[in-house]
């Protein structure tokens, strides 16, 4: 299908000091094979040609892995398609004449920088608080020295697939970062290499999550449902367990 049209309602905000508002745009020369971001590119080209400021939005790899894109489309982070980032969403999932509302991630911890761009550095700080295994370059034993069962490796991998986009925070009614934080904690806690720092890590990372001001987890499951990598709530369970365990052990 070519030349189909949509009505967009997009959050525009000059910077974090000014108030934002929704602005309506009609686009009517779309091709169904465009990606959602290419649709925005087309709109931006049009805005530029009429000497207006283009819509700022975060994007980079455009193949669903860098975790840059961050917009809530019709109330859903990354849009209507399950297990898909915005950049992998194509316009044929929409219909001619659809109304589409685009908003930035909404969370106190992710303040809007401009339009649809938000500041996600709290995620970096949480990883810095302990989301690593302390091993200096050159001090590693042979890769096969520690066998790891396929089961544990898969469990760790499913958690490690997190792209750090923040859709979990955006989807959660409490803006909780539990899925993101728990994925890293669980990945490292389920591997033998992660054992020495296991307790220290979970306490440090959860405490940092608290400091950053994210909400609490009420286990609604919205994060898992909207996660573009479909990361399971099981990891939140694991994080809770690890956190209680580490604190009770003292």
């Amino acid at each position, binding site marked *: 299908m070519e030349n189909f049209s949509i009505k967009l309602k997009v959050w525009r905000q000059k910077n974090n000091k000014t108030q934002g508002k929704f602005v309506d745009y009609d686009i009517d020369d779309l091709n169904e094979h465009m990606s959602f971001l290419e649709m925005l590119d087309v709109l931006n080209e049009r805005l530029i040609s009429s000497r207006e400021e283009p819509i700022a939005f975060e994007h980079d790899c455009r193949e669903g892995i860098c975790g840059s894109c961050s917009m809530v489309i019709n109330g*859903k982070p990354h849009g209507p398609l399950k297990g898909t980032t915005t950049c992998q969403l194509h316009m044929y999932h929409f219909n001619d004449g659809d109304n589409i509302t685009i908003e930035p991630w909404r969370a106190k911890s992710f303040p809007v920088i401009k339009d649809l761009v938000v500041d996600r550095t709290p995620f970096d700080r949480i990883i810095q608080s302990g989301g690593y295994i302390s091993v200096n370059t050159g001090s590693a034993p042979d890769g096969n020295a520690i066998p790891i069962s396929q089961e544990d490796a898969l469990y760790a991998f499913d958690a490690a697939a997190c792209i750090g986009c923040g859709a979990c925070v955006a989807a959660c009614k409490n803006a909780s970062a539990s899925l993101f934080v728990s994925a890293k904690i669980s990945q490292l806690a389920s591997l033998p290499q992660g054992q020495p720092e296991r307790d220290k890590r979970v306490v440090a990372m959860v405490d940092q999550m608290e400091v950053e*001001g994210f*909400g609490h987890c009420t*286990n609604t499951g919205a994060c898992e449902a909207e996660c573009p990598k479909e990361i399971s709530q099981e990891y939140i369970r694991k994080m809770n367990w690890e956190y209680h365990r580490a604190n009770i052990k003292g």
Partner: protein
Amino acid sequence: MKLYFSSKIFQKALAGLSGGFLVVFLIGHLAGNLQLFIPGELGQKQFNAYALFMTTNPAVIALSYITYTTIILHSIVTIYLVFKSKLARPIKYHVSSGNSNSTWASRNMAFLGTMILIFLIIHLRSFWYEMHFGNIGFDKWGNKDLHTVTVAAFQNVYYTAFYILSMLMLAFHLSHGVGSAFQTLGLNTSKYKKSITYIGKGVAIIIPLIFASIPITLYVR
């Protein structure tokens, strides 16, 4: 460690544990209420004797104070958490489509809890208060006649309907709450996840259903 008690995970665990205790309380309460199914004088005698026991036995009295405390704790912790969560998202979404990613109950635990709390206050006023401080008659065995108070209350169609509606709220509250508590405590492992889900749903359906069937029986009878 310094942050453990102030952490939201700990507070959630507190909510889960207190909720779990309250479920146990509900089961006990329900077991007692089952005596209301016994028809006629026998039912009246047994229920009133039971009411007397429950209000005078020192162990039960101690347990009841623990229960009151738990209810208050459960309410305060959860209200505090809700308050905190509101701070985490100061600007709401213009469009939200929560139904597509989560259950209604899971998103409305605070509302359901508040409704249950209101119910609880009215419920206590109707029966607990009457039993302790009300001008209540005696049955022919000399016990305070709570049975008659109860039967009379459920002759009122509005009161009965309110009770049933509240049980519906409880059902939804438990449908999310039980499983959620296990998850928060980290016990919802993949091995037991299925069983926990079934137990959670089972508890959510069976307890409120039996509770609700009592006023219906009394009303119809």
